[in-house]
């Protein structure tokens, strides 16, 4: 694995970015120069040091005088938690249900696909509002919303792939030998569909990171005192003309992270699917 990583330069970059973000999240309380919630309205809306600010606040301050660098560092925690757990939860549920639907077909497929239809036609806003109304506003609930709204993507994708894989001759062959269905799904079919699922997961992670921003924009995000990139971005949009860095900096943080996750995903796919190693 290490060897493969060394060979793939982009993969290495991706892994390093992801590790850096994880590192920032784990050590935020040590490396952040300020308390991210510490306000100082006398020094609000300071520009970053490279845009005329000073070194007290390297990336400047926001509309309440909070240190932007500290908020970006602390914000990585939420991003990691939401994106990681949201994706895992959605991926596991979606892949399993999709695989079952695709493999068994018939009424099993029909039932699962109807659940998918219901989920798809259930408006995201209504889902988010409902979870917020019933379970309150918290980080956990944002993860739940993320998972519920994205498992369908995996289910449909995996089912689609299975429909084509299933008819392949070697599966027929294994079946004729008398292997159990569950064994066929786990040992033979899932490995075959893992590569599109991983691509989907890296896409999905990006989507969930953006979703956190949308939830903040719609007022359905995590409690306000928790710094998140999404909220910084959504707060920053009002200052796009006067203080553009407030929206650009969290945007860069999101972009780099999503990029890292994707590069890592691409490498992982190549690694897991040796057929592609040309």
């Amino acid at each position, binding site marked *: 694995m290490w060897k493969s990583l060394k060979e793939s330069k982009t993969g290495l970059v991706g892994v390093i970015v992801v590790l850096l973000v994880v590192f920032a999240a784990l050590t935020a309380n040590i490396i952040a120069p300020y308390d991210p*919630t510490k*306000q100082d*309205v006398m020094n609000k809306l300071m520009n970053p040091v490279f845009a005329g600010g000073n070194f007290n606040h390297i990336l400047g301050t926001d509309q309440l005088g909070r240190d932007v660098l500290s908020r970006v560092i602390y914000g990585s925690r939420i991003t990691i938690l939401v994106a990681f757990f949201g994706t895992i939860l959605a991926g596991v549920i979606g892949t399993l249900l999709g695989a079952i639907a695709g493999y068994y077909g018939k009424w099993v497929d029909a039932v699962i696909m109807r659940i998918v239809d219901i989920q798809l036609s259930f408006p995201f806003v209504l889902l988010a509002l409902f979870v917020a109304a019933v379970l*309150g*506003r918290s980080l956990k609930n944002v993860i739940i919303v993320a998972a519920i709204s994205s498992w369908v993507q995996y289910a449909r994708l995996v089912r689609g792939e299975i429909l084509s894989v299933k008819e392949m001759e070697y599966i027929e062959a294994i079946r004729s030998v008398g292997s159990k269905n569950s064994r066929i799904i786990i040992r033979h079919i899932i490995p075959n569909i893992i590569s599109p699922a991983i691509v989907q997961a890296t896409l999905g992670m990006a989507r969930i990171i953006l979703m956190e921003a949308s939830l903040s924009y719609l007022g359905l995000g995590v409690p*306000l005192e928790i710094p998140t990139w999404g909220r910084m971005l959504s707060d920053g949009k*009002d200052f796009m*003309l*006067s203080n553009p860095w407030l929206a650009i900096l969290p945007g860069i943080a999101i972009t780099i992270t999503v990029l890292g996750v994707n590069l890592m995903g691409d490498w992982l796919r190549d690694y897991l699917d040796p057929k592609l190693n040309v």
Partner: protein
Amino acid sequence: MTKLKSKRFVVFTLLMTLMIGSLYGCATPGSTGKTDPTQSDTTTADSSGTGSEAAGTSGEKTVTYAQTKDVDSFDPRNATSTITASMMNMLYSSLVTTDADFNIICDAAESYEQIDERTYKFTLKQGIKFHDGSELTSEDVKYTLDTIREEEATYKLKSDFSFMSCEPIDEYNLYIKTDEPNVSTLLRLNYVKIIPKNYVEKVGDEEFNKHPIGSGPFKFVEWNKDESIKLEAFDDYFGGKPKIDEVICKVIPEASARVAALQAGEVDIIGAVSTSQIDSLKGMSDIEVVTKPTTRAVYFTMNSFSDSPVKDLKVRQAINYAIQKDAIVAGVLDGYGTAIQTLALPMFEGYDDSIKGYEYNPEKARELLKEAGYPDGFSIELEGSFSGISNGADVAQAVGAQLAEIGIKTSIVEKDSNTMMDEYAAQTTSPLTMWSFGGPYNNINLITKCVLGTGERYSAWSDTVFDGLKEKMDTTMDETQRLEVYKEVQQYIIDMAPVVPLYQTDLICAYNKTKIKSWSPRTDEMMIMNDVELAE
């Protein structure tokens, strides 16, 4: 826009003083008044002499402005939100109306007088035309109030106006009677927009809503829901033909997009500007930023029903001592607002600047917390519908930071106003709940009743002494005595500390001054284009 007004406008218990002061009505139309009684029957003569200019210009004079939300209805009997009520003020006329500073002025009425405490006599101007050319008479006023009152009627303003009735004397004279003596009759009449009896009876309510006909300065042209509304000048308007030919109201919900539209020259006037955008607007030479203090108060209620530390008077007082209102107004709102000590706003009857609330005193606050048994503070939830209050989220976080100074940690949760109204009803609001209250009212009766009265809509407190004072406030008719009661009420609110009054909001609007010569926001937060003047 903010929650209260977007649901329906607040009904107000207005003061006798105001009424008595203008008992023989229509004396002071004021500089912004849209009617001039002395010229009411000359439809072409223009009181300010700009008629010739209008005639001399061949191009269409259009004013485009942007609102945050769409109107709900074109039937004035359903006009609950501030935005809808604003539109009604352009399309319809009422017996009396208010100017930008909330003074009562005559509209369709030529004059009025109070006969007794339940009766007003109105004389209509003669020759008022509806947009279809028919004449407005007492019968139309009667019809308007009768239909609202009907048993099976479901108009949204029904419970606001069903206490009123109209008895025509002749074509131009009528009585407005109220079931009970009511000090707010005149102010409320501003919202009784007169609808044309014959037309509505002929086409029915649904068609009327689609093709409304009023007697205001502008005629309805088209309505594309959630997009735009187009009106055109009514040539035969009894107050004189408007100085512009066309009004277009666009719905632009996103604040940055409204500013962009103003900068791009697509709209001429925008409302609901947030302080974060003022700097970039002020930097532009062709844009004028205008502000107006409104009747909207922002405050926190503390839920005395919840099982939380705020049940304790000492804790509530500590919280009041811990919050530095002036710093919030200056630091977060950039000075666009006025710190308040009680729920009385500076323009209200009953406001008394000798009444001092809690000063900022964190030592005292910590001491009180210690006495209450919380030497190390505690953690509570703070909620609010922040998007409904300009800079609401920032204010809430600033308050959270100030409370953290005395050891109270807050989790700041955003909710929609709908959910919060359910919570108020079920008495399950957070220990600290941010809310705002505004609308067409000008005394402390209404706000203290709704915010602090037992079982009221936005109250998280129940206190028999206060309820008694509230009763006294409503029934004391003598002015000097009532002012004493107001003092008593405010002092009691300070002593019991059931709320943290924060500030009175400023409404911030902006317009393109290369196109618009003058336009003013209003105390009641409405956006009305009746008096807008174009630049040369």
